[in-house]
């Protein structure tokens, strides 16, 4: 046993240091170099810029939309909402009173905003990250009448806009990127 122990010390310490250099330093740095070279946009957070070059968000990360004239994003438990430094879900369980109270309030707000009928689940539930960039097409379309009314646009035009932003991957659910949708909305001219 003693010999087993002492014979392990040199390989253990030397290999730990060599692997630390290879896997902890060389590998991530080489990947950073390659990533920056081959995919500079994605490697730096897939930022979206406006005409003046100002970064206004990321195509993959959600941001808060609380105003009436934009499609609203889902409720968020990340910090005070869509905090990019504090990703989090609510972690409320199925029988939580806090969850039931929160959903009750959000349902009431949706009703006040003119959405009738059964509410799409994603509209009144917090995502896992608190940074969900998407809505289901149903949740986006449910908001279309409000947007059309407030922006003075024909309803079918807003609905067509939602359809044009909807992505339908082969192995996944259809989704609408809310930042892309709201930018498209702004680009239609009438604010």
């Amino acid at each position: 046993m003693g010999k087993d122990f002492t014979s392990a010390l040199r390989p253990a310490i030397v290999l730990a240091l060599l692997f630390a250099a290879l896997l902890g330093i060389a590998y991530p740095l080489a990947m950073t170099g390659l990533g920056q070279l081959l995919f500079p946009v994605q490697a730096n957070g897939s930022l979206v810029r406006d005409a003046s070059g100002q970064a206004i968000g990321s195509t993959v990360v959600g941001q808060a939309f609380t105003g009436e004239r934009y499609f609203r994003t889902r409720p968020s438990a990340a910090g005070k909402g869509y905090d990019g430094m504090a990703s989090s879900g609510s972690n409320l369980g199925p029988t939580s009173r806090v969850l039931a109270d929160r959903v009750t309030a959000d349902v009431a707000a949706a009703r006040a905003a003119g959405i009738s009928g059964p509410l799409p689940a994603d509209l009144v539930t917090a995502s896992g990250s608190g940074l969900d960039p998407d809505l289901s097409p149903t949740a986006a379309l449910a908001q279309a009448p409000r947007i059309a009314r407030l922006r003075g646009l024909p309803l079918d035009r807003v609905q067509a806009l939602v359809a044009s932003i909807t992505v339908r991957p082969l192995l996944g659910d259809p989704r609408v990127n809310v930042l892309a949708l709201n930018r498209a909305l702004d680009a239609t001219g009438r604010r």
Partner: protein
Amino acid sequence: MTMQGWFLILAFVAILVATAKPMGLWLFALYEGRRTPLHLILAPVERGFYAAAGIDPAKEQGWRRYAVHMLIFNAVLMILTYALLRLQAVLPLNPTGLPAVGEHLAFNTAISFTANTNWQSYAGESTMSNLSQMLALTIHNFLSAATGIALAFALFRGFGRAQAKTVGNFWADITRITLYLLLPICIVYTLVLIAQGVPQTLAGSVSVQTLEGARQTLALGPVASQEAIKMLGTNGGGFFNANSAHPFENPTALTNLLQMLSIFLIGTGLTWTFGKAVGNPRQGWAILAAMLILFLVGTAVAYGAEAAGNPILHQLGVAGGNMEGKEVRFGIAGSALFAAVTTAASCGAVNAMHDSFTALGGLVPLFNMQLGEVVIGGVGAGIYGFLLFAILAVFVAGLMVGRTPEYVGKKIEAREVKLAVLAIAVLPLVILGMTALASVLPAGLAGPLNKGPHGFSEILYAFTSAVANNGSAFAGLTASTPFYDGLLGVAMWIGRFFVIVPMLAIAGSLAAKRQVPESAGSFPTTGGLWVGLLVGIILILGGLTFLPSLALGPIADHLAMLGGHIF
């Protein structure tokens, strides 16, 4: 449940089964120490490592020496990580100026990553500097995975060899596995992840002005390189608090599929490697079949429960399945499948918050871990855990027919059965003992976020996850306290190494035995009867031990949910 959802699940299983043999062949080359095409580039690195460390890769070790060397290597790595985390504030690559990681959190995290658990008592973006993520955590993601596969190789050699004194060379095994398997796959995988939108930069964060005019700061870092090995090595420790639910860790439906496949890739290949190592690939397919039956049943229950949704929310006017804690881009099928995969394997990455699953949807991940994570399982750990159950299964079959049990040409005798029971009994003993302790002590009761039976589920899930070396959580539990950090740290250590040592003793004992040729009286371990027996043994051991605790937690929660009770 939708057609689209089932299509995803079946496509996942089909791709997985298709990878079993190619992956198994590659692993078999490493098992035998044969040359691979990658030796052209990497063999000089391998030789250099051996020369510097004074290792003779051809000199094999008995099980005791293999075990001691493995333990000492892991202890050295753990101390290194603890030191790096404690010194984080004064070390470079700390762009957001984070302070040192606290004592009990560093203790917990160092054990956690050493034991391939990656339990996160911390939020990555606000706790770990880029250096800590890269150096202190990523190396464990590689080396704890390599250790798991090496241990599986040692046990395979026990079955595959006759009258042998040795089970391999630990140093050669981990070096080859890291250089010729984990690192090359991770390099390609990292680039795919970056192309899909996972950041890879040394910057700490970037600030944007949103469309509504607010400021939003987005945490960044070398995410992709860590994400790749986090999944492939079934580690599961996320760069960010929200883990694979975070759009920067898992941005698309495609990355979600790849992440799930990469969790199972090596574990599935190892079933084939085992069959090859004992001279009959059908032995491997039988194991994979038993695993997939258990996996598909669990997945179907979780998907069904989540798609059915929460009746309490339906009463409020909400339609459809349970989306609390889930991302739209994964949907209900992609989230339920991920939850089943990550807990069947000992990964513990999450793409949805398990705490917010419906009661039965959350029971499945919990139960998967309580079975000992032998359904595909962690890299290496899954198959050696499964083989412990196989030993018990042939023992039970032997009792029924009154013959000395045999498995793949080796007589299974009292010593092996005792050691297997010892390794398997650790799991319920520690999980249930510590859960009971935390359920009565004030420091334990301070942890849960949710009230009622769901609060008990949070505690039970934490200790199950720690002992099973999973690392996922019902994350409402506040675990960053001295009580939980300490107790969970001990739980993770016991769950990893108190299984490994008896398992290696079995490897040594089996290697020394002669091969017994199969005869007419041997119980066949390849057909449907054997697969059924395996599934039965695993379910009975898991089910009987944990059923009472599940009744107090998720099952009570489910009945409350159906009755519309809130807490």
